């Protein structure tokens, strides 16, 4: 009798357990098709792919160009990121070993913007590069572009067999966010004539998505003629790497203009930083034992306008390693400073600040270095930057 009862109960328990197996519904995958002239991209780029200028490509999430894969973007193509914050932010991420071949031209730049932007490839083809409906100070509508490579970084744990770290803005759950390595001439592709707009959505406090983020990008990569407009965070940020960058405009960004970390060992040549809300330059030192520095040269900086006053002219840390040469600051307001002149690794050559000579000292925290003086003419050669929205909207006037 006892046994029978036991068996019955055991059987009941089994039935109970198994009957609960089939109660879940299925999740419908998100729609993968937009209209005819729109293509919603939701999957990572896992085989060589070309995006052509006859379509608008909508980033439905954080789209990653995977290791060994090349994404080619034709000139004049428009890419739009869907809205979303936090881990839900949209972005184009080029993972280590992946390649982005985005070669726009001055006549047909490649535009990265928000789905809220009504700009179409036909506008670009017609030479209208400005947004038809969004003001150039509207930010935080999507994420940004993140390029990661295998070049050395000076991260905190670089001297053991862990030589990689997770890039800002990508949640830890996504291992494609790792960057860094030992291939100095690593090649992540070509980025030319690209305008990145309205991005930098909120990720979480202390965490950012910049307009263009480069983590461990190697010197084999070509990055030139880049514009970042109204990114909620920094304009361009380097985390180590060896890539050289030239012909850059950063306009109306919500945080810093040019931001460098982890011993980026490259050169930024010919650029304009205009009316950012944070520091115009936020230049950090190495975080690991590898010491390397970068050079920033031939630039013009507009430090304020009617709406915006930037923070520091130049912000460096004690351990920063950077050569600053031929940089001109204009529209400088009282309180704006070079925050530090004592860092041993930082040199100032031909830095001109457009203020009265009597006021110069008030814009330098410390003794004014020999390389810092007053001046009234810009160093950036803006003749090649006429394709930018900033230029077309008059944002570069006076340089």
């Amino acid at each position, binding site marked *: 009798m006892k046994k029978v009862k*036991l068996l019955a109960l*055991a059987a009941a328990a089994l039935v109970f*357990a198994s009957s*609960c*197996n089939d109660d*879940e519904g*299925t*999740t419908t*995958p*998100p729609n993968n098709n937009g209209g005819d002239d729109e293509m*919603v991209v*939701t999957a*990572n780029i896992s085989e060589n792919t070309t995006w052509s200028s006859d379509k608008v490509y909508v980033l439905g*999430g*954080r*789209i990653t160009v995977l290791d060994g894969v090349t994404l080619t973007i034709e000139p004049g193509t428009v890419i739009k990121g869907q*809205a*979303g*914050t936090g881990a*839900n932010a*949209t972005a184009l991420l080029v993972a280590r070993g992946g390649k982005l071949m985005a070669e726009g031209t001055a006549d047909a730049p490649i535009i990265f913007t*928000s*789905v*809220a932007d009504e700009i179409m490839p036909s506008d670009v083809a017609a030479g209208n590069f400005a947004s038809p409906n969004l*003001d150039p*100070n*509207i930010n*935080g509508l999507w994420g940004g572009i993140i390029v990661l490579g295998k070049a050395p970084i000076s*991260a*905190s*744990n670089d001297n053991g067999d*862990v030589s990689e*770290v*997770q890039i*800002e803005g990508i949640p*830890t*759950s*996504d291992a494609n966010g*790792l960057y860094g390595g030992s291939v100095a001439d690593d090649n992540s592709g070509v980025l030319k004539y690209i305008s990145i707009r309205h991005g930098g*959505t*909120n*990720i*979480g*406090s*202390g*965490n*950012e998505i910049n307009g263009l983020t480069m983590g461990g990008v190697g010197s084999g990569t070509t990055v030139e003629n880049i514009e970042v407009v109204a990114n*909620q965070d*920094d304009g361009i940020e380097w985390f180590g790497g060896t890539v050289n960058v030239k012909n850059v405009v950063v306009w109306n960004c*919500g*945080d810093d203009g040019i931001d460098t970390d982890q011993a980026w060992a490259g050169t930024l040549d010919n650029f304009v930083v205009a009316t950012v809300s*944070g520091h115009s330059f*936020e230049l*950090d*030192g190495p*975080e690991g034992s590898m010491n390397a520095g970068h050079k920033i040269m031939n630039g013009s900086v507009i430090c304020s306008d009617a709406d915006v006053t930037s*923070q520091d002219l130049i912000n460096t*840390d*004690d351990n920063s390693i950077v050569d600053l040469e031929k940089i001109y600051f204009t529209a400088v307001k009282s*309180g704006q400073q070079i925050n530090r002149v004592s860092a041993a690794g930082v040199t100032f050559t031909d830095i001109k600040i457009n203020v009265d000579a009597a006021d110069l000292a008030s814009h330098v925290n410390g003794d004014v270095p020999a390389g810092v003086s007053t001046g009234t003419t810009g160093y950036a050669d803006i003749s090649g930057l006429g394709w930018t929205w900033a230029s077309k909207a008059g944002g570069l006037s006076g340089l």
Partner: protein
Amino acid sequence: MKKLVVLFGLLTVSLLTIAQNGTIRGIVIDNETGERIMGASIMFPNNPGVGSISDLDGEFTVSIAPGKHTVLISFIGLGDYTVNDVAVTAGETTFLGELRMKEASDQLVEVVVQATVKRKTETALLTLKRKSAVVLDGISSSLIKEIGDNDAVEAAKRITGVTVEGGKYVYVRGLGDSYSKTTLNNMEIPGLDPDRNSIQMDIFPTSLVDNMMVSKTFSAHLPADFSGGLMNLELKSFPEEKIFEVSVSAGYNPSMHLNSDYLTYKGGKSDFLGFDDGTRALPNGADQSEIPTPISGHSKEEVGDFIKGFNSTLGAQKKTSPMDMGFNLTFGNQKMLQNEKNSKLGYIFSLAYKNETRYYDDVVYGEYQKYIDPEQYELRYATVQNGQVGQNNVLLGGLAGVAIKNLNSKHRVMLLHLQSGEKKAGQFFIDNDGQAVGQSGYLGLSHNLEYNQRSLTNLLLNGTYRLKYGAVEIDWRIAPTYSTGSYPDIRKTAFTFESTDTFFSAGAAGNPTRIWRSLSEFNIPVAFDITEDLKFMGRDFQFKTGISNIYKMRDYNIRSFDVQFFGKQPDWVEQDPDAVLTDDLTYPNGNIYFQSGNGDPNPNEYQSRSNNTGAYVSGEMNLTSKLKVVAGLRGENFIQWHTGRDQAYANGNIAEGKNLDNEVVLESFNLFPSMNAIYALTKMQNARFSYSRTIARPSFKQLSFAQILDPISNRIFNGSLFQYSDWGGELQVTNIDNIDLRWESFTRDGEMISFSAFYKYFTNPIELVRIPEQQTSTEYQPRNVGNGTLYGIEFEFRKNLEFISKKLSKFSVNGNVTLVKSYIDMTDLEFNSRQNFERMGQTIQNRRAMAGQSPYSINGGIMYKDKEKHMSGGIFYNVKGPTLQIVGVGLFPDIYTIPFHSLNASFSKQFGKDHKNGLSLKASNLLMDKLESMYRSYKAADQPFNSWSPGMSFSVGLSHKI
């Protein structure tokens, strides 16, 4: 619920009115074993017509005319037991207490004084403890009654080896939550706090506690997922005497109460009852995949209407803090239904309300790093937050139970509901150092508003039967529980400061954020047990077998929304959070809107289920007259299913993203052998040996894709299903082998001394690991780490101080000291990353202490008890050694919980007519210690991870028995 109250009301009224007789009650105990005797005859030599038989609980109830009576108890094989001069008053109950039947040669005659039998014998529980083959300890209602403790937590403190945390959670042997377990009426109940194994004990009045037993070693009939100790709280179903008790209490903490700096915020109208009235409900439409924003194609007005669904209170406000207060109503009795069949009805009811306020004015959350330079020993900060937090906790609990029993069967139904609401408001100054690794540098001021609402409803159905004159006991239990835990509308608003500007900066202190988290869980445990007393080769042999099944199902989701500005944001010169969501700044008039942080499908939403089917056999036998062995084997088949997905899948990356649709994430069948042996060195001295295998399993939260952000500390928990770096995403169960050796010596009145040595081997322990590759935000993930070994010694004692001086006979001391050595062999990843950050002069070993295991724990108490004066009191001290809390990797140092020297005192007295009034006084944290977790690194000063002062608090309670 209302009906029940009415029913109870009627029952008491009927009892009060019809009684002309008086009642005698008692419990018949086997003196040798401490077990209860069923079927003993209760006779009245002077009233031959009256009598009874003890029931399956060994209890008897006799209705008899008022006057003085002699009670004679007899049972085959044992000597008669006579109680003289039992005074019975009309309408009242005379409770004789435990009556211990001895061998036939000893006739026993006792005289009743003041209701209970006067004696100096140990309680039945002490005998049980001494004789039991497994190491157990506990406290029963008879002792609690003598001492006069108020709630179950106070009573639990008297058990050696028990630590009380936060005034409500009980742990055994200094082992943390993942290795301890608490059950109610032998059934698993999820705690109100879903991340704990334990149920809070402070809501159970002692008048309803039948006993609290702690098993320190495993045997086959217990659930296998504990390793340190299992505490079971058994509630009364048949109160020996009528209980009708009202108590009120008030508490005062000089640093927290009546303080005009206290922070709070305007909540809902029902906050004082422990739940939200809808004030914090998710706004209409916020659960849609597309919410109205300026760029979603909705009109400006639609965007505006949507924003109006969000409560606009964002700032913490100063207000004078109230004192703590509590109220308790307890009610219970039993009633004879049918004299001939000896059938009784028992009922209990209890209502508890607590309203407690805390104010911490020195809260610190720190994130610290090592320097890159190995010669720089000190730690540097990445972020330090200093602030104040005000907190109001409301707890409402109700318990009702009805039981019916006759001589050999008992059925009971018990319904428990707990409801709690915790309102929190904080203000923090944030300092982020841009020179630290991964940080951009900013200053900020944040306002944090939170509400945490929890509920638990548990129904217990239980039947117990004794067959074959009590030789066979059959017991079944079903105890379904529904529990919820939600954080409706967490609001964080943090201003960033840069030179003269105050603004919201996405990359610095962040934009204002709203978060809704919700959890609901069903638990259905079922158990069926049979115990039979047999003879085997002429010796007593007790055979136990049973099966059990626990089915659990959890739904969890998080939704978050961020404030965004469509264009330029104003300068927030006033730093007033309540100025943000105003009509002129939000859509359609202004440019503020909410953006969704939720994927579709939501990666922060999961459904998890688990089913654990267990079966066991176990036998207990006296192999010789001195050696008793209980050996058993338990099998548990555990399966956990998960429905959830990672970020990639949620973003639409169906090809590579991971999506689990009701898939098995953990399946393990394990056998748990156990053997407990007790050897009686003398009548009062034992040597014990025990071996068992037990298990610790990952929780639903640990085995998920959830990413849970704590908005105040800004730290992120990652479920273990994410594969990352060299973590494969497959969290394994922890198998634990336990060996215990123990010597113990007892005296009759409850004194004891014991020495134990124990050894445990952990295969695949789970620890919370800092993710080294993530340097910007502070993120953790539970992972299996290398195998762990633990060994230690334990010393326990309870001693009356009469041996020093007669004057001290009312004092006793008890204590428990445990010394533990534990170590884990590190994984290569951990070892290498630690070596990379080796400081000058430091040598990194590939071994370290296990997380969660303190190297020592000390519990001690001096207790005072004066039965004649109805007074008792005690001073209790408890401390745990520095315990590795979070495993640091690379740049990030280890985090240790710092010893908290807890010194508490309590005093209680019964006074007035029939001692029906009670006064209790308590003082907590007399040493004014701080609760701290610290970053620790070689040759560096400790730096705070979490730190705050609970202050000293006092409380007064008054109770009255009606």
